[in-house]
Every structure is written in structure tokens, then in C-alpha cells.
């Protein structure tokens, strides 16, 4: 099972996703914004996969990812977004190595399948 670093600024959503992921047997570490993501990755062993909310206060998931990629962290990344179907509409995410987008509300079966595929 995978070690997942999960970031979202909503506590209820963090708890929800964490619960579902742990029920699937994943090991979950959480972060409330982009800065916590960067700190968590720097502080310990890099996770198997990053699950980042695109819009967070202080530092967005995209900004955090940009910093991590600059430091040579290469783990797979899924971006969770409330902007359905937004994806990378403006091409701003080019070169960040994003492996997929997850719309809110989250389709957990599809999310689990993606995590399994990316961490296999």
C-alpha cells in the first residue's frame, strides 16, 4: 500500500479523504496548505504519491509542487480541484509532471484506481 501526502485547506475534506484512504489500507500524512506540503516532504522520506488541492491559502498546491519539482522530488502527483473539468486549461502546469486531475466531489473508486495505477 502507498504512503500518501494529502493536502487540502478544509479539515472536513482532509478527514474524509484520509478516512477513505486509510480504509483502503494506505498510509496518510496530511497538510493544510502548500507550505506544509513542502515542509513535510523536506522533513522526511518523500511519499509515494502527492494528492494536492489546487487552491489553498498561503501556498497553492501548484506552487508547492513547483518548489518540490525544483528540488528534484519526482513522486507522482494528482491535483484535486473544485473547478470541474478545468485541468490545465491555460497550460500553466506544463512541465510539472502532473499525473491527473480529480474533480470535486471526489469519485473515490476512480481515485483509488488512479493511486493504485500510479504507485504500482
Amino acid at each position, binding site marked *: 500500500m502507498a504512503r500518501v501526502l494529502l493536502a487540502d485547506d*478544509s479539515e*472536513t*475534506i482532509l478527514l*474524509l*479523504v484520509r*478516512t*477513505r484512504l486509510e*480504509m483502503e489500507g494506505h498510509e496518510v500524512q496530511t497538510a493544510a496548505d502548500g507550505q506544509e506540503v513542502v515542509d513535510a516532504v523536506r522533513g522526511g522520506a518523500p511519499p509515494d504519491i502527492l494528492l494536492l488541492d489546487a487552491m489553498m491559502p498561503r501556498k497553492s498546491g501548484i506552487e508547492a509542487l513547483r518548489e518540490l519539482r525544483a528540488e528534484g522530488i519526482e513522486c507522482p502527483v494528482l491535483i484535486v480541484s*473544485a*473547478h*470541474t*473539468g478545468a485541468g490545465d486549461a491555460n497550460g500553466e502546469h506544463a512541465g510539472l509532471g502532473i499525473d491527473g486531475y480529480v474533480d*470535486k*466531489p*471526489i469519485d*473515490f473508486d476512480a481515485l483509488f484506481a488512479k493511486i493504485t495505477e500510479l504507485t504500482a
Partner: protein
Amino acid sequence: VPVASSPIAEQAYSRPRFRLSPSLANRLTIGFAIAFAVLTGLAVIGVARFLDQRQEFEDATARSYQLEIEARNRLARGADPATTRPEILAEQRRRHALRDEITSETRDTALLVGAGLIAGLTGAALLFSGLISSMRRPLENLVEGSRRLAGGDLETRVEVGGLQETAALGAAFNEMAAELQRRAGERDQLDRMKDEFVLTASHELRSPLTSVQGYAELLMLDREKLSPKQAETVEVILDSSRHLVRLLNDLLDLARSDAGRLTIRPEPTDPAGLIEDAVRTMRAQFEARRQRLSLEIEPGLPAIEADRDRIRQVLVNLLTNANEYCQDGASVAVEARRGEADVQIDVIDDGPGIPAEQLEHIFERFSRGDAGETQRVGGTGLGLAISKSLVELHGGAIKASSTLGRGSSFRVHLPAAPQRVEVA
């Protein structure tokens, strides 16, 4: 900005011709008016002189006849012919001289009057045409400006000039155009704010909805620990939250469509696979209402240029409508066949049908079946409007037909992908 204009009117108003500038035309007009007045004055003086001379001539002639008659009378009464006859001859010569004089004076006066009249008439004609041309140019500009404005070019303005009246008209036109432009700008801004609002609202609503749906699903994972009543309650929460998500997605699509930001990523796609996929998605809902869902796809359909997700969305929308508006046990057929340069996909049901007055507006947003039905069905009233936008983005068309009591049929035309030419 495209400007609408008919070719005939275009020809009539923009034929190249010599034109005076309005200010020059104005000055010429004043000049001609003065010349006209002076020459007309001359003609009047000439006529007066002529009448005066004529009177003098007639008086002198009359006096001469009187003298001649007196002389002849004296001759008849026995006066000396040697002195009287020369008197008579002298009077006759005097009248000759007077006639010659008046003839030449009449000719001079006639020339003067004639010249005056001709010059005056010419002046009048020039004055008139000067007036016309000083009005024509600004009026033509106004006609052209109006046409550009009607064609949607709100930045159009006309040159203000010519007579005071045409200048005022031009200024009023420009004021009107400026006002139209200002209002169009305000309307655009309001539209943008509305689109922005819908996008933001949809985004903000999505987060709590994620929690509602996610936690309800979490409860359902422990379904066996819930009482049947509780399980049913959670089902209602889940159904409602899914409905809300659908509503949000539809609103978002519509806002994007309005903002011109609804985009598709078409690629050559096998229509059969796409249709089967959509039908498979809907199979369970049809079974739940014991409705028959049949599928007939003509073999060897050409590839279509399609955004898979979006066309699946259209087909699922049509099937959802059939599923929800038809009675339990109804039959719905999906048929796909090759058209001339497209693929036609029909969704045909034997449901209650759609009244003609509703059918007319069926692709308009928030157009839905009658109130009783919509209470039961609970759609968003946006699905067909979005489907139409999506199909049209693909360069296709969507049509509906229906017979009350017999059923409804929706046909989607999607253009075939251009054939790849193999280069040897």
C-alpha cells in the same frame, strides 16, 4: 467588425464623384447668393429704365404728331406751304430719329435685362446645387454611419459638418452612437460579472458538497450497521447531492457556453464504441424501471470528429430524459446509421410524447415538461440546451420530433472525421 450592407444601396451611396468640402460649398453658396442679388437688381433697374424710355419715346412721338397735325391744319386753312411743309417734314424726320433711338435703346436694355436674367438664373441654379451639395455629403455620411452602426460597429462616428441643421444631425448621431457603445460596454461587463459569479459560486458550492456526498458515502460503507430507515435516509442525501452536482455541472457548462469558454477537444473517434459506452452507463437506470433499452448500430460507421466525454454527456442526457420522462416498462431504442457526410444517432422512445408548444422551445434553457412531471423527474432543465451547444460545437445538429401519446425521437448529426489520405 463586419458591417452589413446591401450591394444595391452600396452602389447608390458610394459611387465616386467630385465633391466640394462642406465649408467651401458654404462660402460658394454665400458668394453666389450675393451675385444673384446684384444681377437680379441690375435686371430690375434695366426693366425700369426700359419702361421709362418707352414712356419718353411715346410722349415725344405724341408731341411730334400733334405738331404735325397742327401744321397740316394750318396748311388746310391756307397757311404758307413754303414754311409749313418743311415743318411737317421736320416732325416726320424727328419721329424717325426717335424710333431709331428707342430701337437701339430697347436693344441695349433687352441685352442688359437678358444678361441679368441669365446670370441671375445661373446664380440661382449654382446656389441651389451648392446648398444641395453642402447637405448631401453629411447626409451620405450619416447613411453610411447608420449602416455601420446597425451592422454592430459601435465605434462608428460621422464627420460633423455642412449646414447648421446637418451638423446638428451629425452631432446627435454621434451622441447616440456613443451612448449605445457605453451601454453595450456596461452590458458586457455585467455579462462577465455574471459568468464570473456562476464560476465562483459553482466552485464555492462544490467544497461543502464534496463533504456531504463523501460522508454520506462513508455511512453507506457501513450499511449493514444502519437500520433500514437510516439507510434509506442516507440514500436520499446521496441522491440529492448527486442531483446538486448535476445542477452545478450544468450551470457551469452553461456559464462557460455563454462566456464562449465551452471548449471541446475533438479527435477521430469510433462512434459505435462511444454509443455502446453511453448505453452501458445508463443500463441500470433503465432496468430499475423495467424499461427496454435496445441498441442498433449500422456496421462500418465512419469515424467521427468528437470529444468523447462531451458526446457521451449528450447521449447520456438524451437517455436520461427518455428514462425519466417515460413510463415504467417503456421501450427506448438507440439507432446509429451512416448519413451523407455524417453519423446520425437516434434516441427513440414510446413514452408520452411532447406537446407541440413545448417541443418548439425544447432546446431552450429551463424549458421542461409540465410542472407535475418535472416535480417527479427533477432534472435541471439545462441538459438539452447544453447538449445543443455541445453538438453545435462539433459542427453537428440536434433535432427533436414527437407525437403526443406515441413517443418522442431525438436525432443527433455528427460530421464524419475527414478521411485520412494515404500517401504512397
